[in-house]
């Protein structure tokens, strides 16, 4: 036997800074210092938990993750350890279970998650948690995504032995503008308390009382009104903290989950869109350690109502005569009417105002349209405000970086002033406004400016003052109704997915732009594209910064394509907690 093969597993593992751990009878190697729960999770062994959360401090309060653990027996003085045929020491199982979240792995450790002891203690913990649980699942919004429901189904005893009356606590308490608290449903895991203390840095929640009366409470005279407070609703494993916005709207088992990104600012927070029958019911954050960790600001979470709002434009709208009222139209005549109108105006008198809220694919089609028309007056409306020091970026456009790359704008928003001036002085006679309201403070146009124009075209999903003044309005779609990609402030390209079908007769924005460009006689390869994925592949062929990009490569968590030097404060804080 050579020197190599006679080495013990512990030495081989130690050379890589790892340890050998036996989980349910199989040996694995894990980095030294890893939590038992993470180790189990990484090899697909499920350990039920309430209080453990990978982004929060360890509390070890719920006792749900109890597992059976064993170590090699302590040696007598002078006794040499003995190894079995595979080179592992004998494991002596401890009579007392340990919690997997607050203990780390070590050499030759044994873990059992499915032994009779582990199963018994789990059932025991659940019985205690359910002793005072109100069992009002039929009226609880968490039903269907409730850990207590799942675990009592998987590990519980299904029958209560507790015949005494249950402890009464506060129910349906309003603790903040967006949150309701039900103390009876609480399992006292303390995730909300740790989030408010460590992440939100606004410690308004705490435990009060003792024993069976122990309950989560809000500091007297304070409200849970932090701009990130609704994350505690996601964190709560049971229905103790529920969202007022989503309260009794729909049961979660009806909702379809679509992975997408938030379009309210340049961070591009990863989200899940929850929809049913072409109606969006809520948005929740989706874990992405490079973008938003597990969190999301409330303001962005609640900004979804415009998707199914009655203000949406359901079909093309045209004005055939000056001062005539708008009337409904259809797609094909609208495209030809627009192409004719564009041809009547000299190219240098046409301006295209695109939007930093458009996807890369739409911006690419905008560029093709501008090239087909031959105008150089192309810009986006910039929205720079202040960052909140957590997740909300200073740039409130979700895709300014994309606009810089695709449209080649060095300083987005800098031409807008010139265009506005051109309109007022009569040098610009037609505006193609794509997904923006020009009368908004960011764009700075006034209603009387539009009187100087010969032609105003608007493509937008929602009615606005600009759309009301337009000669032709073509209805695009909101972020929940389209596929596409955006590049966030850090230079990460991320995907939007379609959750619902377009409202009414609305069409995907990129197809509208494609049809207009086609009507103007373009024969670019993008005219044959059938999906926004095709456009993305074309972008990958054309731009050096996005070389070989395609839908599959971007993936659910995005792909870092550029180095912009911008960072997301919350993520930096998470990576260097001291700094």
């Amino acid at each position, binding site marked *: 036997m050579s020197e190599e093969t006679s080495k013990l597993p512990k030495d081989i593992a130690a050379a890589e800074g790892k340890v050998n751990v036996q989980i349910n009878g199989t040996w694995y190697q894990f980095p030294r210092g890893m939590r038992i729960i993470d180790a189990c999770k990484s090899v697909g062994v499920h350990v039920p938990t309430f209080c453990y959360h990978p982004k929060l401090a360890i509390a070890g309060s719920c006792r749900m993750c109890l597992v059976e653990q064993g170590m090699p027996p302590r040696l007598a003085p002078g006794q040499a350890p003995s190894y079995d045929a595979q080179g592992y020491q004998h494991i002596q199982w401890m009579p007392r279970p340990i919690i997997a979240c607050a203990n780390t792995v070590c050499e030759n450790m044994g873990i059992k998650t499915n032994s009779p002891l582990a199963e018994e203690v789990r059932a025991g913990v659940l019985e205690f948690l359910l002793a005072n649980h109100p069992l009002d699942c*039929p*009226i609880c919004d968490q039903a269907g995504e409730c850990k207590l429901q799942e675990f009592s189904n998987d590990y519980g005893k299904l029958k209560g032995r507790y015949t005494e009356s249950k402890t009464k606590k506060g*129910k*349906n308490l309003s603790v903040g503008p967006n949150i309701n608290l039900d103390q009876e449903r609480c399992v006292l895991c303390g995730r909300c308390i740790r989030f408010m203390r460590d992440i939100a840095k606004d410690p308004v929640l705490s435990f009060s009382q003792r024993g069976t009366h122990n309950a989560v409470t809000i500091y007297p005279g304070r409200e849970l009104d932090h701009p990130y407070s609704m994350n505690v609703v996601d964190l709560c494993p049971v229905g103790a903290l529920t969202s007022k916005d989503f309260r*009794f*709207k729909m*049961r979660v088992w009806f909702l379809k989950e679509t992975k997408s990104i938030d379009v309210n600012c340049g961070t591009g927070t990863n989200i899940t869109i929850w929809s049913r029958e072409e109606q969006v019911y809520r948005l929740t954050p989706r874990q992405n350690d490079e973008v938003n960790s597990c969190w999301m600001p409330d303001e962005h979470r609640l900004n979804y109502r415009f998707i199914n709002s009655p203000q949406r434009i359901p079909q093309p709208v045209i004005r055939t005569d000056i001062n005539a009222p708008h009337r409904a139209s259809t797609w094909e005549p609208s495209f030809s009417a627009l192409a004719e109108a564009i041809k009547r105006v000299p190219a240098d008198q046409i301006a295209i105002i695109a939007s930093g809220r458009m996807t890369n694919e739409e911006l690419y089609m905008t560029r093709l349209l501008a090239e087909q028309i031959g105008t150089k007056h192309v810009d986006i409306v910039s929205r720079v405000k202040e960052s909140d020091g957590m997740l909300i970026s200073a740039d409130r456009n979700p895709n300014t970086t994309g606009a810089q790359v695709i449209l080649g704008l060095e300083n987005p928003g800098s031409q807008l002033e010139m265009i506005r001036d051109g309109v007022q002085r009569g040098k610009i006679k037609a505006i193609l406004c794509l997904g923006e309201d020009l009368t908004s403070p960011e764009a700075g146009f006034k209603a009387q400016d539009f009187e100087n124009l010969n032609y105003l075209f608007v493509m937008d999903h929602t009615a606005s003052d600009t759309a009301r003044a337009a000669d032709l309005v073509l209805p695009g779609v909101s972020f929940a109704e389209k596929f596409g990609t955006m590049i966030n402030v850090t230079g990460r390209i991320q995907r939007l997915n379609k959750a619902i079908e377009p409202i009414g007769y609305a069409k995907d924005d990129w197809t509208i732009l494609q049809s207009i460009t086609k009507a103007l006689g373009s024969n670019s390869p993008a005219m044959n594209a059938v999906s926004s994925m095709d456009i993305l592949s074309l972008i990958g062929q054309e731009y050096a910064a996005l070389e070989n990009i395609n839908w599959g490569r971007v993936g659910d968590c995005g792909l870092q394509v550029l180095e912009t030097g911008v960072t997301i404060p919350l993520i930096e804080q998470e990576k260097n907690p001291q700094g």
Partner: protein
Amino acid sequence: MAFKTIKRPKISIGERFYLKALLGGLVITMKHLVLSIIGKSRSKKELGGSGIGVTMQYPEYRWDKHLPEYYRGYPVLVKGEDGRERCVSCQLCEFICPARAITIKPGEVPADSQWNKVEKAPVEFEIDMLRCIYCGMCQEACPEQAIFMSQGYLLTPTDKKAGVHNKAKLYELGGTKQGLVNKWNAYK
């Protein structure tokens, strides 16, 4: 492989040509024929008929008294003895309904209501009776004893809209049910 050789049963000529079963059937038919002719058929006594033939003379005579207890008529919503609408719009019936006949719009119980500790109640509850297949799964799924398959079967909607029972109609058909478990009692 584990298999067992079994012996085929011996079948006589009579059995092979179904003679016994055919004759047995004929006897029953003849019995009904004779009873009908002399005006003493079962329908006279049990179905309130004329005694000629075994057919019930619907709609003058109806099944109602002859329905078994487990008969599944159209589904209805019921109120408890305390007058509370029992449904809390948990939407389990909507989920289980194989014909997707049920549509519920959940809502909140107003704070000034006597039953505001129940928190949740349906704003609208619709059962499309043109879709309903009377399977009774809604009753089985209901955790609140709120929806029941009634003994009613007389539904003659004159248009599609009338075929959809709304909340008011369902409570009207269901009425009050006695002897249900009161989960939302004083101790809740």
